[in-house]
């Protein structure tokens, strides 16, 4: 992508990000109930104290000024104080992010590891028994409600077979010094293989639950891109040159077939972030998704507001990354 196209694409982000912030702001501004009352609860604060607090939080200002203040603060990563934790929202959220990133990355790696080979094989053996089987499996994968699959997985693999822990990220006995917050990395850095394995066992079921639906989607995308690539002239040419089938499939066709797969994978990481809320709730995974769900039920609106904004901005940026990847991998497309 040339610098001018990139700059244009970045400029296009501005109205989108502005619109997203406006929606997130109005979501919370329209919420019934006064945040000050929620924060103070039934405490004995006098009306004057409540008014002072309201003024302090800028709640007495007109809507547009409150929005500008919200925008200004948001740009600086300032989202106020969590009602429940009595600490800055940014700190509470920052603590939870590594767990969510770890789970999302693991799920995406698993989805690529399963989905791409499945799609390639199904395309190569098009309309054969493997293709049919893969079609059924991917249809099941995209039709399965993730939270239900997670509950069944806990029942079968954790409770009945005892193979995996029921919830959490690591046992209480393991102490891991904080480096990245991602336990798989931190345990290795600290040189604790036992703790690493324990973290891996905790991660296995939630990552599988989250990753399987994505694997099904990626398999479908890879399959159709691969079928398309195998029809191209350069494949016919390679066959005419007498190259081996394996070489043609892996070296020539796959390289091009992967372009849509990589793009979809980047975009769908945003969907994984949404799926996190469900999977983290089912598996008691202490990430951002579970924090948001808890915050909704305790009416902890600053957390909800900041997290929804964070998710949306991440999603928009992932889309940008997908676009850039697409042009880099496919020089014929000029944005």
């Amino acid at each position, binding site marked *: 992508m040339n610098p001018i196209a990139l700059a244009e694409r970045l400029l296009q982000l501005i109205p989108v990000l502005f619109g997203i912030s406006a929606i997130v702001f109005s979501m919370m501004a329209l919420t019934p109930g006064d945040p000050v009352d929620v924060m103070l609860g039934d405490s004995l604060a006098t009306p004057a104290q409540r008014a002072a607090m309201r003024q302090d939080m800028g709640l007495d200002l007109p809507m547009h000024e409150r929005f500008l203040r919200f925008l200004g603060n948001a740009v600086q990563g300032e989202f106020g104080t969590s009602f429940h934790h009595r600490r800055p929202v940014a700190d509470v959220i920052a603590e939870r992010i590594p767990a969510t990133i770890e789970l999302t990355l693991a799920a995406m790696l698993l989805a690529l590891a399963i989905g791409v080979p499945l799609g390639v094989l199904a395309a190569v053996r098009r309309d054969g028994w493997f293709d049919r089987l893969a079609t059924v499996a991917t249809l099941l994968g995209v*039709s399965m409600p993730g*939270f239900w699959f997670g509950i069944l997985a806990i029942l079968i693999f954790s409770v009945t077979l005892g193979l995996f822990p029921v919830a959490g990220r690591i046992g209480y006995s393991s102490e891991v010094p904080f480096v990245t917050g991602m336990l798989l990395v931190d345990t290795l850095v600290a040189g604790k293989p036992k703790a690493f394995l324990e973290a891996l066992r905790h991660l296995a079921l939630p990552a599988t639950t989250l990753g399987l639906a994505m694997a099904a989607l990626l398999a479908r995308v890879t399959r159709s891109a691969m079928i398309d690539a195998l029809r191209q002239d350069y494949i016919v040419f390679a066959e005419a040159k007498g190259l081996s089938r394996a070489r043609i499939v892996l070296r020539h066709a796959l390289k091009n077939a992967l372009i849509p797969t990589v793009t979809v994978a980047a975009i769908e990481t945003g*969907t994984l972030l949404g799926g996190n809320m469900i999977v983290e709730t089912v598996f008691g995974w202490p990430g951002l998704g579970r924090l948001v769900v808890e915050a909704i039920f305790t009416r902890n609106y600053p957390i909800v507001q900041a997290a929804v904004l964070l998710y949306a901005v991440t*999603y928009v940026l992932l889309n940008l990354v997908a676009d850039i990847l697409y042009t880099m991998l496919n020089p014929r497309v000029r944005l």
Partner: protein
Amino acid sequence: MSALAAAAPETRFAAGLHALRANRAAMLSLLIVAGFAVLALLAPWIAPHDPTEGDLLRRLQPPAWMEGGEAAYPLGCDALGRDILSRLIHGTRVSMSIGVAVVLAATAIGALLGLLAGYLRGGFDVAISRVVDVLLGFPYLIFAIGLMAVMGPGLANIVLVLVIKEWVMPCRVVRAETLAAREMDYVEAARALGETTAHILFREILPNILSTLLVVATFRMAAIIIIEASLSFLGLGVQPPAASWGSMIADGRQFMLDAWWVSTLPGLAILALVLAINIASQGMRDAFDPGLRA
């Protein structure tokens, strides 16, 4: 353009129907979806028991084929002694009515705005496209969860929240199709004949993109049923004591060890309906839009 595609819209649609009828998996799936629809429509007359009245003596009673089950409660009872079969049947009503209502409203709104944006272009197109971009900027479930948290749970709110986000999908498809149709001969001809914009939009362009719209609508309905179940599972959807598949799964979670049927059966119901819709939708896409077939 092939001879088939150049034929009159009725014939192309008929050809699609013919191809669809030959697809056994798709026809079977349509039959299953129709079966669910009948259950949903006739729920109060079909369900053997009251879905909200429990009998605590039957708390977590197993299905009829297990020890301790009885034929009058074929799929057993939940933690409040309510008949699971009856709750599943009434849950079908919730899932299908939300799915149909959201898809119908979103398709109507999205198609109208997409037609206008694609045909008129200019400022209106820019405005609609910006709104679409912003709404696409939110991951689906996060948008729904955020807005449901603000508006409060309930059937009408779920439909409203999902429509606010969902119309974007048909709108994008219709806009793109309209942009292409705008340059085609039949639209040019209608314009030359002095037809009104409304006539061109609804009598010329819309019938030509109807089959695409139908495929998108069925495919999205499957997604919406899962999203509704997810919201209800989190407690942000349909409120108790009303039966929804998602909340039934959530209710059964804590009894999973002693009474697997409480959570497992509603999940199977979701899987069956969503799978049937997906297969039917894929069959329709193959039949009506052979160009889209991989």
